[in-house]
């Protein structure tokens, strides 16, 4: 397996794994194919204490991300009702999707256009308001575009830094938008005013291309590193254990 070269999807999975670095013994709750693969990768390597779901009512110990052909190794019964104990207690880092996300990390998954009579009704507020003011949140954007990374979201479902700064009491303390990971780059909010910046670009992508695909002005440091490649052990885990059918490669095709 050491001859395998990393696909773009593998780089994304590693970037997801890196988002969970340092999280320790909490629920890593990545939603989406590559997030589920990347979360497993973090647990199988440098964050062994993470907990992960089966997408339903159990936390399972399996390294495989999907299907669990050998059966699930259940370590906790976690029906939806118990999930709120975890979320509202802060013992979770969720990675959600976003139909729109702006420069301060405000997210929209509810509706496009005017909310009262939307052009396109989406999912609804779902769990985004509660997630973002209670536990760490990151976003996964499989197709980076100015429509998704846009200047202003139509409805704020997930709370960004500009709005969190207005909140009183402990709510602002519990708020953290850690990363936005896309098919082009890794972005974060580690700037004085929490505006989104490029943390790294995936191999073969330039910062100009990332800016071009973004609907607002990104903070671009003088020296932007390239996103980390998987090492040999990570590649082995990705191709042989976590996602042997390569579902992640369909979510983010080669550029």
């Amino acid at each position, binding site marked *: 397996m050491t001859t395998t070269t990393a696909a773009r999807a593998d780089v994304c999975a590693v970037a997801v794994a890196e988002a969970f670095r340092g999280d320790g013994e909490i629920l890593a709750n990545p*939603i*989406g*194919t590559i997030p*589920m693969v990347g979360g497993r990768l973090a647990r199988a390597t440098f964050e062994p204490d993470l907990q992960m779901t*089966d*997408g*339903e*009512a*159990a936390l399972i110990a399996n390294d495989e991300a*999907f*299907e669990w052909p050998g059966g699930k190794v259940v370590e906790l019964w976690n*029906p*939806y*009702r118990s999930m*709120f104990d975890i*979320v*509202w207690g802060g013992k979770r880092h969720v990675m959600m999707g976003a139909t729109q996300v702006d420069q301060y990390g405000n997210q929209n998954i*509810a*509706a496009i256009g005017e*909310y*009262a*009579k*939307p*052009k*396109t*009704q*989406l*999912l*609804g*507020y*779902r*769990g*985004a*308001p*509660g997630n*973002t*003011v*209670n536990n760490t949140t990151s976003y996964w954007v499989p197709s980076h575009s100015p429509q998704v990374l846009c200047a202003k979201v139509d*409805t*704020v*479902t*997930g*709370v960004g830094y500009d*709005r*969190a700064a*207005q*909140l*009183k*009491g*402990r*709510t602002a303390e*519990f*708020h953290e938008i850690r990363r936005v990971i896309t098919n082009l780059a890794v972005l974060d909010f580690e700037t004085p005013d929490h505006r989104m910046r490029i943390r790294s670009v995936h191999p073969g992508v330039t910062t100009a291309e990332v800016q071009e695909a973004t609907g607002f002005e990104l903070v671009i440091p003088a020296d932007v590193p390239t996103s980390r490649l998987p090492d040999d052990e990570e590649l082995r885990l990705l191709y042989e254990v976590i996602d042997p059918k390569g*579902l992640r490669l369909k979510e983010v095709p080669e550029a």
Partner: protein
Amino acid sequence: MADKRMTPQEVVGRLESGMTIGIGGWGSRRKPMALVKAIVQSDLRDLTVVTFGGPDLGILCTAGKVKRAVYAFVAPDVAGATNKNSPVLEGHFRKARQSGAIEDEPYDEGMVLLGLQAAAWRVPFLPTRVGLGSDLLRDNPRLKTVTSPFDDGEELIAMPALELDAALVHMNRADERGNAVYLGPDPYFDDLMLAAAKVGFVSTERIVDTAELLKEAPPQALRINRAFVTGVVETPGGAAPTSCEPDYERDEDLHAKYMAAAKSDEAWDEFLAAWEAK
């Protein structure tokens, strides 16, 4: 001893137009669809529907039964990221929202839990951090803020009690008195829906003797309290097209027809015919 067995039509006979009705299950899972079907076939209208939404709300919207949707999401949810047959968006609800046919009362999904709990406990609201900073306060005028009376003085959101006129849930097994057990992975919020309602109706795959309720499940799965149940309806396959694990998975064929039915009147009629034949 009360025998609460009734038909879906008798359940509908206890409901009235304009009522607020809670529907159990979650997304595409364990929805009381036989009871929803009976509503579709009735004269009921102007319903306020409280739900963790799936085909229940979608179908009732297209059938013209819904005045107001109280929800956090409407989605044909299934487990895992690998199911390619699971589009994230729900065409029927979408159409109703985009045409302005229904009133909209959005929440975060945990707020729905709190609202049902408040109603069940007969308090006007429960405080939560959830919603602060988001546009929920813009989009849902029922939400207010409340200040903690203690030294911290924190500003929180008051989630209003979601009082239900009636609740409809589907369980794997029930006895004729209304005790009921789920055999799948999650109770969802069905017991809370019943506790938050003036009257509750349980449809079930099979009515069994009380002594048999725990034949297939541990005691903690015996979650439905007959004191909250007015009627029990035996409806084998009554959750279809949604899943009712472990009795059956989602009916993908019927579900696909349902998803397609948002596109045209012909497709809607085709779905209704296939659903009624079940």
